[in-house]
């Protein structure tokens, strides 16, 4: 396992760790606020899957595109979206990244290439292909990344999009976060075999399966995929195997929309991606205090965001009907 970090610099490992921990702490904070009743918008927590967002996004440039779904707090943070704005959005406030129109399931940060996440399963996969086509047509070096779950691979438009990207060799990376569940349904209740990565081959593209709880492995695979994409060698499919710790929606631990999975959790908790990265850092000589400082700073950032969100005003109801249509010419969100 350790070998996946072999070629990576200390600085990079620290960044990856920080990125994951930031997501973890953010999500735990959100979980508490949901339990406390302060947050009402449905939240699908990313806890347990942090290595995937962190590893993939570390391989990306700011102008690369990222697309997500219902479980995208992690993608937003890892790609560099403003933490305070997302917290405010989850609170339903006017200062939120979507100004209170989106909530947890619809976050956006165009300034860092997050062009929108939405909860319809697989919905952004074709959009990601399209952003890849845009990059190709412009001759930019951008790549476009679609994050989605194992459940999304059952939607036909996932296949259509992979095929489309394959035919036109688009710079698109399809990142499947296989956490073995689509809400209450286990993977093998929804497909005959546990072989998502083979979909790549069937569509004539590079497909790999990897340990999605190993941030260094994810990072390396993402680097390889982005290099191929930027070199015009077309799309890739990364099946990252992982597990979500909490319920499908909301913070519950041991119950998943009716599926008791205490046993599985017992296997997966020791594979905690954040703890693993921390152990690797300590192994490589990082100091305990330094790590404590990092954590402390993150906690402060998150606390400040909560305060900011709390103190922000709700959207002005007189603006309910604004933004149904964009202003003439559309928003200029080229990056």
């Amino acid at each position, binding site marked *: 396992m350790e070998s996946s970090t072999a070629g990576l610099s200390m600085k990079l490992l620290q960044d990856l760790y920080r990125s994951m921990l930031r997501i973890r702490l953010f999500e735990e904070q959100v979980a508490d606020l949901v339990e406390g009743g302060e947050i009402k918008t449905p939240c699908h927590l990313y806890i347990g899957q942090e290595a995937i967002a962190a590893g993939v996004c570390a391989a990306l440039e700011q102008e690369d595109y990222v697309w997500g779904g219902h479980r995208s707090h992690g993608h937003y943070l890892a790609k560099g979206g403003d933490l305070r704005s997302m917290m405010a959005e989850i609170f*339903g406030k006017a200062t939120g990244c979507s100004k209170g129109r989106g909530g947890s*399931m619809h976050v956006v940060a165009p300034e860092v290439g997050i062009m929108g996440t*939405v*909860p319809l399963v697989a919905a952004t996969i074709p959009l990601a292909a399209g952003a890849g086509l845009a990059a190709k047509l412009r001759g930019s070096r951008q790549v476009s990344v679609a994050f989605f779950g194992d459940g999304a691979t059952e939607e036909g438009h996932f296949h259509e999009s992979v095929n489309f990207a394959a035919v036109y060799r688009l710079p698109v990376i399809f990142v499947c976060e296989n956490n073995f569940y689509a809400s209450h349904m286990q993977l093998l209740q929804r497909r005959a075999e546990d072989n998502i990565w083979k979909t790549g081959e069937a569509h004539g593209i590079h497909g790999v399966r990897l340990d999605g709880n190993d941030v260094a492995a994810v990072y390396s695979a993402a680097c390889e995929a982005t290099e191929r994409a930027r070199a015009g060698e077309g799309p890739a499919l990364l099946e990252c195997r992982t597990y979500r710790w909490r319920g499908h929606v909301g913070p519950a631990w041991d119950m998943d929309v*009716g599926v008791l999975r205490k046993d599985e959790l017992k296997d997966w908790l020791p594979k905690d991606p954040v703890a693993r990265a921390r152990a690797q850092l300590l192994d490589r000589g990082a100091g305990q205090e330094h790590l404590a400082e990092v954590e402390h700073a993150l906690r402060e950032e998150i606390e400040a965001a909560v305060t900011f969100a709390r103190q922000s005003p709700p959207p002005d109801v007189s603006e309910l009907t604004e933004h149904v249509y964009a202003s003439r010419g559309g928003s200029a969100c080229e990056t």
Partner: protein
Amino acid sequence: MRNLSYAQAIREAHAQLLESDPRVFVLGQGLWSPWYAGTSLKDLDKEFGRDRIVDSPVSENATTGAAIGAAIAGMRPIVFHPRMDFMLLAVDPIVNQAANWSYLFAGRVSAPVVIRSVINRGGEQGAQHSQALQAFFAHIPGLKVVMPGTPYDAKGLLIAAVRDGNPVLYIDDRWLYEEAGEVPEEMYEVSIGKGAVRRHGADVTIVAISTMVREALKAGESLEQRGIHAEVIDLRSVKPWDRDLVFSSIGKTGRLVVADAAWKTGGVGAEISATVAGEVFRMLKAPIVRVCLPDVPAPTSASLERVYYLGSDDIVSAVEKVLAS
């Protein structure tokens, strides 16, 4: 008679249909989950087995198509979409296939499938978890569309839909799941295409659909206190809809308000208004007013949701407007 909740009534209809007709089965997302469909399908899998209560991959098009194919092949499936928004991935099988099957083949084969979807909104869920697209489907020849507003109808319309022999969209609303009402134990049908007068009055006709029936009745009460006698019609079926009942009420009142908790432009209220303005124009004493959602996607923030969704006060204002003009 017993009281059941709307959700319990739906569940009972399923159970009795499954019990009495081996051709009936249920297919769709969330059937093996205790919360996906609220209590409206609770434990049916335990009672009837997972062969007949078929939960599914996240594949709206294929599962809907499979239900249609099974129907054509002699079964009587109910295909379930826990949200109407998801069903938009299955418009091809519904509109291009199921709706056309009987006509295309001159009735030699047909698609007796019930396509059930739930309107599930509010709670800061936002635009993609909120839509009420009955108008979308009511436009299509070959489809029928029902929208029960009471526990009694929730049961009776589902049974009627399964026995109808045509593709029927059955649209229920999570906001009604806890409503209680009298529901007979035996199997019975509510005729598709028949509305019901829920309150009698001679000053204004309020045609209401689904959740809006409850709001219209509340509005009716508060108007009564001011001496305004509203007649409230629960449309129950959106396609076909009960023109005779609506016309006869307008014959009495001369005034019409249509309340449909969906977007205004091109909504079901438009068809009702247009039909009235075309067929019984001379009966009308005043402009028709539609009480609908604004032409805006559903926002998330609770503060916006509060102004976005409709209540009985919106119907009261509409009635005032109709009476004033």
